[in-house]
């Protein structure tokens, strides 16, 4: 599982970075989305992989932390998902407005 997930992170990151370096705005926005998947999975995986042990507690009584997935990276990633949604939306609007103003969808606002 670990190998597959890390390979997946690698593939997502490589595709994302490649798109990030492209000249068209739409490519960059897709690249950022892919890169955010990769980074979110990476942070999430720092809590190690757990099967069938979601961090949902019984009510009261003794709690053995070793029996549950680490909630910390999950909380971080939840925040990261929301923020990457917000930045994607903002970036989308910026590229739309920039296209309206400059007449091109090149990242520099003019064709090279």
């Amino acid at each position, binding site marked *: *599982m*670990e*190998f*597959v997930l*890390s390979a997946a992170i690698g*593939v*997502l*990151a*490589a*595709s*994302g*970075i*490649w*798109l*990030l*370096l*492209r000249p068209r705005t*739409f*490519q960059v926005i*897709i690249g950022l*989305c*892919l890169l955010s*998947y990769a980074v979110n*999975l990476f942070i*999430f*995986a720092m809590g*190690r*992989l*757990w*099967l069938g042990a*979601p*961090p*949902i*507690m*019984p009510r009261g009584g003794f*709690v053995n932390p070793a029996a*549950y*997935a680490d*909630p*910390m990276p*999950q*909380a971080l*990633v*939840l*925040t990261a*998902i929301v*923020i990457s*949604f*917000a*930045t*994607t*939306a903002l970036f*989308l*609007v910026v590229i*739309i*407005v920039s*296209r*309206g103003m400059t007449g*091109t*969808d090149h990242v520099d606002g003019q064709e090279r």
Partner: protein
Amino acid sequence: MIQENLLLTLALLPFVAALATTTLSAQAHGAAAWVSGLLLAAGLAILGILHGPIAAGQVLHSTIRWVPSLGLNLTFRIDAFVWLFVTLVLGIAILVLIYARYYLSKNDPVPRFYAFLMLFTGAMMGMLLSGNILMLVVFWELTSILSFLLIGYWHQGQAARDGARMALIVTGLGGLCLLVAMLLLGKIVGSYDLDRVLDSGDLVRNHPLYPAVLTLFLLGCFTKSAQMPFHFWLPGAMAAPTPVSAFLHSATMVKAGVFLLVRFSPVLGQTEMWFFAVTGTGMATLLLGALIALFRHDLKGLLAYSTISHLGLITALAGIGSSGAILAAIFHIVNHAIFKASLFMAAGIIDHETGTRDMRRLSGLMRFMPVTGSLAIVASASMAGVPLLNGFLSKEMFFAEAADWHNGTWLDNSLPWIATLAGVFAVAYSLRFIATVFFGPPPVDLPHQPHEPPAWMRRPVEALVLLCLIVGMLPGLTLGPTLNQAAQAILGPDLPYKNIAIWHGVNLPLIMSLVALAGGVALYALFGTRIAAGPEGPPLMHHFRAQKLFERLILLLTWKWPRSLYQFIGTERLQPQLRLVVLVALTVATVTLWGVLHPAAEALSTPLNPAFAAMWLVGGSCAVGAAWMAKYHRFAALVLLGGAGAVTCLTFAWLSAPDLAVTQLLVEIVTTALLLLGLRWLPKRREEIAEDKLRPARVRRARDLLLALIAGVGLATLAFVMMTYPLVPSVGDWFLRNAYKEGGGTNVVNVILVDFRAFDTFGEITVLAVVAVTVYALLRRFRPDPESLALPEPQDAVAQKSLAETLLVPAVIMRWMFPVLLVLAAYLFFRGHDLPGGGFSAGVTLSIAFLLQYLAHDVRWVEARLTVLPIRWIGIGLLISGLTGVGAFVLGYPFLTAHAQYVELPLVGQVPAATALLFDTGVFALVVGATVLMLIAIAHQSLRMARLRERDAPQPEKEAA
């Protein structure tokens, strides 16, 4: 205790005055002058009370423990030297206030002038009263900044702006040097306390860092006190209003440098290096300043160079450093402040009443302003060193020190000659000032008809000139004791009392004075007319202006070199910048991890499920496909991106993160909808761009691909190594143990977000709100490209109709989904604290419900039936979350402390009712508002464009109808 409080009050008074004057109206000249004047007079009264213990040789301290854990204290300290200086500053400040009241015109904004002037006074006094050398530097820099603001008070004029900027750059850089010097000094002594530093002279002088400390310290003092070669900012600062010049260049700003020189002469002085650097610079400045002053045609220019020259004199005395020299230095600080302030004020009166400061145009003013003229003559005589005036006494003491034997070096031997020569020039320029301005034929063609100023504008000058006379005639009775106490405060209590007398018999200093007087008169008589006709500057030297050099240097440093550097290595293009970012990230990661990253000895391993591998085969292919398609087939790329997102979402679900899976799924839906709406406004691209097939483009792509592959492989390796390392116990365990006990919820991730780390969530939803409003604002004035204005192909009338028919069944289903989604959102919201869900996912669900209605129907159809006010949702959500947090304050807990309990509801059963739930309500409302606002803002663009089309082309529309 009373004395301590008085000392603190004294330091605080000017700042109180500054605050009070800022509240006055822009025309309240009288009120501002009264308020600040009375507060400063109260300061003088405090000084009067403190005089007793200080005259007895006591040093008073007052300390406010500021950050005691770091050992940072605000220490104020006053001894006889500081007492004298502060009294001088306050006295002249009050006179300047009276003068400014009449000098400034009705249109000059009052609060700015008086507040700055009072702040400056406060900074200057803070510098004098500091008992901690770092605090001293802070106040020192404050005086630089405030002098910038004061010099640039008439910022409409180019000269004022240039002068202010130059003063700030020169004195500010000097201040930085001083800061470093003080830091080094503190390191050497082991304390930043001024008393301890002053006691550590031997330690400092024998330290290997002494030359560095001395150089930096002197750079600070010399720039502030306008010593050559840093003198050029002072004439530039003459663009300030005259009251400012009278204050800054007599008693304060420029005296700060010599104050420090005198203050630190027992610590850093008494070495040959000190003597050569300080006395040498001082003598050069004295001589050249006096020489250049003689050739200035501008009244204030003459006074500026004369100030530079007198500062050189004081500096030279500080450099000599003997007990007599220190006494003379203090005496001359006081005398110069008195006569120079009155001269600046007199020059201001002349400028004010005649409209010019050019000595070549002024003449014979004695006829029109006899009182001002007489006052100016006495003050100039004092400046020249005429007997029976205060300037004569300190100059005599300087001559005596110059003639004395100190160490027999060539500089020491040449001191009397340079001093006498400078005295000749001083007499000549004083004489030129008097003779050209007040005597001679009546002036012709002046901007105003000259006359006496208002009586109270002259009062400060009268007071100062009276002081010149009294001190000049009765030195032993007036200033004698105070000066001796001040000298004792600097050099030690066992200093013998030195009597200051007018007559010492015929001795070398007196002869030097007489030579200077005679030489000066002869010089002016011989060359006076040629000087007036000549250029503004001494022969040969007027081509060479330090100010011009400085401006050229600044131009090079701040404009030309940065520009060429930018052209050489900078770029405006995004791609190289991003490439650099990726490269830097790669390099940093490689450098930090090189040789540190080892595979775990006992690697963790979760048995592989083939389905998981198959899932990621699809997911990976989707990602690569999206990368491949994003240029020419945007829609396909979007679908493939969705595929990769779905697999990510499944992975979260698979690996025990149900909350993440839910959130990712919902966000995925909204993101896709957003991007789909955005596609409409991007240019069509069907055929390939020709350039992309050329060689440079291929090379570029290959390079980027290599970069991407390296980054991907690196990240994968890192992820694999980290994932297989056994988990070390982390803060996560604490959350797991305490989520239910402390947060009252069983879903630990949700408890972390709304309770333990609620402050982070609060920040996060604020970001979301800001982004939504920004999106809305950006799109309000959106003008699309003409190309996107045309109707998309399937939207002509016939096609549109058939589309509506085709979509009939899905549309009805989507309409029915609305209540279902509402219930789902409520369900997700309420179970959030205990089971996967929560305010965020509920909010996104609700906004999807709205979105579906927009998808199923026309925008107009939806908005006729359903009113969503997203901005209110956002505002109310933020308010609820914020108030929940503030509520904790009311109950005496820190911000956002949550309280949890279960409530039994009829029919529903046990419901968690934590205050965190209230917080989550805020999150929910805000997320609904933000998401809907962004979606609607983009969706509405089509509507707006349709309206625009209708407005622009009404004819065809009607025909079609």
